[in-house]
């Protein structure tokens, strides 16, 4: 762990809603560093948006504390927190034009200076030509940029992004995401992104936190979390994986697919995660423990093969060079040690 102090810190935040025994947020402890792009990732209904609303001050937590730059802001109203937000639907004020929307954020500056400053922010997001347009007259991508400019114009200490790319169509999403990320990097803005899209989270954030049923399951750099998920929920949410039961003995485990390497030394029954792309298919010679290739699924840029070992189905991703036909016996070669998962069910 880095030794720099946390810029934003939450301690065991909890929030229950009156209409159910369910805790929307059960115990959230986060530490976010200055200028970091952090992502809360989880399925819909996991409490990530509630966490965001707690941070912004729209909801009051039942328990727990929020510290910003070491100061307790748990009881501060939203307007006193200096935390900006870009909503999923952007929430541009419909009665103000694009420029006025941005000037709205500059209220603490002298009236005369506001317009010029707002123009600078518009230029920053490339919307100079649209200053006098009303929000409904510009496209979704432009609305997103205008909302971003408005939030940044208030010079927030932290910027919250609530699924800001989900309203855009797939082709636009990629480029807007990249522009946004570059802009935040350039300005060194500390940012928390909320999304349910694991690909977006992994490509956008410096660190991600996986949320499920009001709890954080795992926090870390995307590569690490993907490669070494701590439990079955994380392993499955971040992408496709094979969950395999096995009997561990040191750095190997005996499994239905044979003896395979594992990532930490242990013994006894274990649950393992083995990513489809970490396996290679090879032709079987009769002496070894082989599986039967039962199905191949062509997906364009790659292929998924389903291999049966007794009761266990294993999926293996290969590229176009793999030409095994269904029904052939095959062997698996493991390219990366399988991850030992903790037994806690999601």
């Amino acid at each position, binding site marked *: 762990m880095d030794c720099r102090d946390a810029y934003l810190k939450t301690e065991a935040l909890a929030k229950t809603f009156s209409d159910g025994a369910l805790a929307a947020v059960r115990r959230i402890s986060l530490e976010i560093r200055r200028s970091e792009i952090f992502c809360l990732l989880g399925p819909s209904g996991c409490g990530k948006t509630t966490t965001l609303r707690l941070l912004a001050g729209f909801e009051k937590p039942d328990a727990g504390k929020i510290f910003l730059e070491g100061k307790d802001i748990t009881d501060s*109203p*939203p307007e006193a927190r200096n935390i900006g937000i870009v909503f999923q639907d952007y*929430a541009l004020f419909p009665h103000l034009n694009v420029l006025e929307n941005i000037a*709205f954020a500059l*209220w*603490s500056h002298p009236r005369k200076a506001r317009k010029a400053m707002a123009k600078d922010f518009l230029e920053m997001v490339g919307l100079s030509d649209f200053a006098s347009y009303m929000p409904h007259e510009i496209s979704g991508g432009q609305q997103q940029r205008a909302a971003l400019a408005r939030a940044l114009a208030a010079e927030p200490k932290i910027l919250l992004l609530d699924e800001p790319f989900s309203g855009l169509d797939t082709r636009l999403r990629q480029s807007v995401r990249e522009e946004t990320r570059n802009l935040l990097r350039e300005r060194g803005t500390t940012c928390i992104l909320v999304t349910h899209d694991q690909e977006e989270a992994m490509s956008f954030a410096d660190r991600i936190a996986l949320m499920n049923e009001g709890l954080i399951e795992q926090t870390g750099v995307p590569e690490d979390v993907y490669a070494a998920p701590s439990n079955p929920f994380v392993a499955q949410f971040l992408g496709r994986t094979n969950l395999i039961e096995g009997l561990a003995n040191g750095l190997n485990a005996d499994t239905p697919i044979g003896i395979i390497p594992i990532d930490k030394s242990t013994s006894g029954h274990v649950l393992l995660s083995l990513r489809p792309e970490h396996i290679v298919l090879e032709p079987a010679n009769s002496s070894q423990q082989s599986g039967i290739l039962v199905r191949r699924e062509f997906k364009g840029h790659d292929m998924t093969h389903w291999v049966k070992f007794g009761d266990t189905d294993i999926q293996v991703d290969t590229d176009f060079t793999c030409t095994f036909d269904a029904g052939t016996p095959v062997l698996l070669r493991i390219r990366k040690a399988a991850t030992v998962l903790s037994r806690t069910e999601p």
Partner: protein
Amino acid sequence: MSSASLAFYRRPARLSAPWFLLLPALFTALIICLPLLYLFLRALHAQPDVIIEMLVRSRTLLLLVNTLGLAGGVLLVTTIIALPLAWITARGNIPCKNVITVMGALPLAIPGYVMAYALIGIGGHYGLATHMLGFYVPRPEGYWGALLALSLYTYPYLFLNLRTAFSELDPRHENTARSLGLSEFKVFTRVTLPHLRPALLSGWLVIALYVLGDFGTVALMRYDVLSYALYTQYIGAFDRTYTAWLGLMLLALAVCFIVCEHYALGTRQKAPPALGAKPPSRSRPLHPIAFVFSVIFIGILFFSALGLPILSLAYWLAQVPAGFDYANLFYSLMRSLGAAIPAAVICICMTLPVMLLRIRYESALSKFTERVLYLGYAVPPLALALAFVFFSLNVIPALYQSVWVLILAYGVGFAALASGPLRTAILQASSRHEEAARTLGRTPRQAFISVTLPALRRGAVTSFILVFLVVIKELPITFLLAPTGYSTLALGMFSHTNEGLLAQAAPFACAILLFSGLSVVILLRSLREAVSTNGKI
């Protein structure tokens, strides 16, 4: 998706409601409830044995029977008119469907008492029919007169409801029933009618409440129902206790109607929207005989609901005597405006905080204040006016017989009318905007003023016009509460007609028609808007 994760999508409890909404909303509820309380107090003033004697009086029973009989008759007639008309305009292959739909709604522009006036003007020695046909045609009056006038005026409420329900009905349900082997008639009774039930019930409720509260029509037709009896009792007798009890009976009947509708509606909900694009409703070719009958039906309906009143009015307008006091007409117009404009403003001030609370800060309290708002509208106007008489006499005697009490009573009676457009506007003004303003440094009050209020401007304007136009033609509340000598358009028309001076009443009726015609145009437009907004949500 599991029900557990669905629970997260229910709107979470918001931060507590701000004081600048809570206080006005509570004040609104108080303003509505307090006068009604005085109606109860005044009624309970008498000795118990006197009260019992009054309630079981044979006259009371007769009034009850007459009132229910009239309401039942109007419901029957309006259903007979509205159901086929809605079906034809929604499903039939009649040409000019849109024109027919708009024409079908137009009788709303002819208030019940103006309709009564027009029908009365047809018969009689100097009436239009006698004049044209050359032999004596009796004036419509009593039960049949009131039934006719009220039905012709109120059927559009039911028609518009049913028309919307027909066009919302997913034809796939009917097609499925057909494919399961049901005959066309069975499909109608077992699939289509159940779907129409909510629309039918809410339309019936609106009409029943209107008939209960109507005063102008029954007074002009001289049919002895509760509201007419209350009126004669109020102007003729000194026994205010019996008047109060008549008011209470009206109120009780209104509550009965609402409760009945609530239970008849039950807990059944609308079908969930089916997946995929809804295929267009099938427009089915009518059998030639049915087609001819439809055309005749529509022709007769429009002739009696629109043609006759307009002809009759035009006929009497031509008879206006040379010495007609146009200055009086002008003053009446000014007085109508002078009461309607502040009343509309008050309605918006009363409704806005209540609706904002209801939509943004849902709680038991916000539901209560909203119900109270609708209660004000459901109370029969004569009962409401009577409540204000007692209230002002006891609490603010200085204001009794002042125009302020009249305006306040309008506010209580019509605040609920302002709720429709305001609700639409509030739903469109997402609470995200206010939250965004908060994160940009605004306090709750500043955020409300700078972001939410501007977004409600259009809704408020529509509400204003809606209330304004209804108040302009309001009769019963004005009748009881207008200060002596304060004659509005509606009062002028009513008193002239009541005295048999049909020609003198004609210019007043014309002015009223002008305003109420405008209100129907706006009603139709806001209906369309409401449909499109609900579609979005």
